[in-house]
């Protein structure tokens, strides 16, 4: 298993911001709970990878990014897309495969794209997004921009060659990439220590000569503070930064996973560190939020999701006559 955490404690956070973080994490959690139901109802098909338990990572990092920054994510990216500002409607319609979806329904759950927010896709090849993030950052650097590319991937990606090639190249060229490793301790059913000869992933990244840090990925404020610090360093021209967020997925890897590889007790143990319920209770304890506030928050989110589902239901199927569109660009040089 991974070594004990040495993370800084979360900074003091302003009340409205704390509530905003809670809200964003809850939006993801509730949206995905609905996704699971819709999967069982066969409204959503194919692969569906849920993020329950890991919400603090997407919320903490994506909130720290600027509007011009790029994002490259994995197949477990509903949360990142939602916090980034892709409307729940467009996400849900995409999961349904409807042409009103953010990728016209052509991508599905694993391939959410949105040019407006520079959301360059969920990538379903483990490690496949890292070189692309390096290239986006290279373009930004060459064009004299100060934007950063946030690149999300799991602990499993660390075993891929593309991970090592990309970290080396990004550091060699001092490219503005924030590498965010969502270390949830498992790659499908393979526990980290069964895949890695050395399990301290931040240390591995540091070996490439880049700044690297591990943070408690179950604490949204700790993640956000670490991401802000990392982004400041990157924007100051110090090259890429590796942020390992130690987290845990509460649900199965995907909807097909009977979870033979881990003990229920382990999952229950981690659930005690649920970033959402822990934040809720600490806010309540501090008197920063009342039960009635929480109820209102939940009501608003439920309404947003109901609306998204209704939108997806009412969505339309792309005509089969359009099948061969978007293989090549329709606007070509003349």
């Amino acid at each position: 298993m991974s070594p004990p955490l040495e993370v800084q404690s979360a900074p003091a956070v302003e009340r409205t911001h704390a509530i905003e973080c809670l809200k964003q994490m809850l939006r993801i959690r509730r949206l995905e709970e609905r996704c699971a139901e819709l999967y069982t109802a066969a409204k959503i098909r194919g692969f569906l990878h849920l993020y329950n338990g890991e919400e603090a990572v997407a919320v903490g990092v994506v909130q720290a990014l600027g509007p011009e920054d790029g994002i490259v994510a994995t197949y477990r990216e509903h949360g990142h897309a939602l916090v980034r500002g892709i409307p729940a409607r467009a996400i849900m319609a995409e999961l349904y495969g409807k042409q009103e979806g953010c990728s016209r329904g052509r991508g599905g759950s694993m391939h959410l794209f949105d040019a407006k927010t520079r959301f360059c896709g969920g990538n379903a090849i483990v490690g496949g997004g890292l070189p692309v993030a390096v290239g986006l950052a290279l373009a930004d650097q060459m064009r004299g921009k100060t934007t950063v590319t946030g690149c999300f991937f799991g602990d499993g990606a660390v075993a891929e060659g593309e991970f090592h090639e990309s970290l080396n190249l990004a550091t060699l060229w001092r490219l503005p990439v924030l590498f965010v490793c969502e270390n949830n301790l498992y790659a499908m059913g393979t526990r980290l220590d069964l895949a890695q000869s050395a399990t301290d992933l931040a240390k591995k990244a540091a070996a490439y000569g880049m700044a690297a840090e591990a943070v408690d990925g179950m604490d949204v404020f700790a993640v956000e503070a670490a991401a802000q610090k990392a982004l400041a360093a990157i924007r100051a021209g110090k090259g890429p930064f590796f942020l390992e967020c130690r987290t845990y997925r509460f649900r199965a890897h995907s909807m097909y996973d009977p979870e033979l590889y881990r003990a229920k007790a382990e999952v229950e143990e981690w659930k005690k560190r649920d970033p959402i319920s822990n934040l809720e209770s600490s806010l309540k304890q501090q008197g920063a939020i009342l039960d009635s506030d929480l109820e209102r928050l939940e009501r608003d989110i439920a309404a947003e999701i109901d609306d998204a589902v209704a939108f997806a239901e009412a969505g339309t199927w792309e005509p089969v006559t359009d099948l061969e569109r978007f293989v090549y660009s329709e606007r070509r040089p003349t």
Partner: protein
Amino acid sequence: MTAAQAPSSYREAIRESIREAMRKDDRVFLMGEDVGRYGGCFAVSKGLLEEFGPERIRDTPMSESAFVGAGIGAALGGMRPIVEIMTVNFSLLALDQIMNNAATFLHMSGGQFNVPVVIRMATGGGRQVAAQHSHSLEGWFAHIPGIRVLAPATLEDARGMLGTALEDPDPVLIFEHAGLYNMKGQLPADAGPVDIERARVRRAGSDVTIITYGAMLWKSLDAAQMLAKKGIQAEVIDLRTLRPLDEATFLESVGRTHRALVVDEGWRSGGISAEICARIQEKAFYELDAPVERICGVEVPTPYPKHLEDASFPQVAAIAAAVEAMVPAHG
């Protein structure tokens, strides 16, 4: 700006096309292994570092996946990268990026993210560099929807295809035959971009259509010359673009000659030659006076000794003999 010297070899023609593109558009840059200080493993980019500097003539580590992927990302980010992979043999380490990213992003994003990257690489055998350095895999790449696959065989195309490819909104792969870099010839100083959509008839003929591309064009033309002495007029078509395949040009030709021979350095099974044969029988079956024939690379990992290597690739005599067997005796 130095006065442009008319390029006099395939290598120089490509270099000139890179130089022109870089002068014209500051979004264009070249990256790959040893493209800068070394001058390119085939000396294509020699001298460009001095003119454009290390930012735009970028040496990369030996990380094919990372720098090809970086080219894809840079294209998404508004640049117009030319990525050089030393040879097709090493492109296998970047296959994931080409196939899963470059070829899919436009589609998976519902038309939002096109990838204007150009990836160049040397291909082909015939230099006695054995099994791992002699592949002809452009036909494989031509299997992939979402990319364009070009195979310049002439100086004109070596000079002109890159510029057009860089204007294209989608990923373009250019396969330069390693055996052609030293090919000499003269081009006008004002030679420029060429179309990348159409095949070309390189030699007109009425008795048989030889369909080929890349280095095999020259062997086919030599064979056609031999055949002419025997009274057989072979039409030779240079495909130029393997994807999308310009079938109209070869179908039209077969409609006139009623016989077709496909010559491909790549392996036969499942190769681009098989695709061409299939298109002819699907669309010109009733035009045919004889079965479509193929001469392909023998299905063996390319051997090192010269006599075995020669035997593993299509040769002029074999092309001529195949045509003679197809065409009724001329009196």
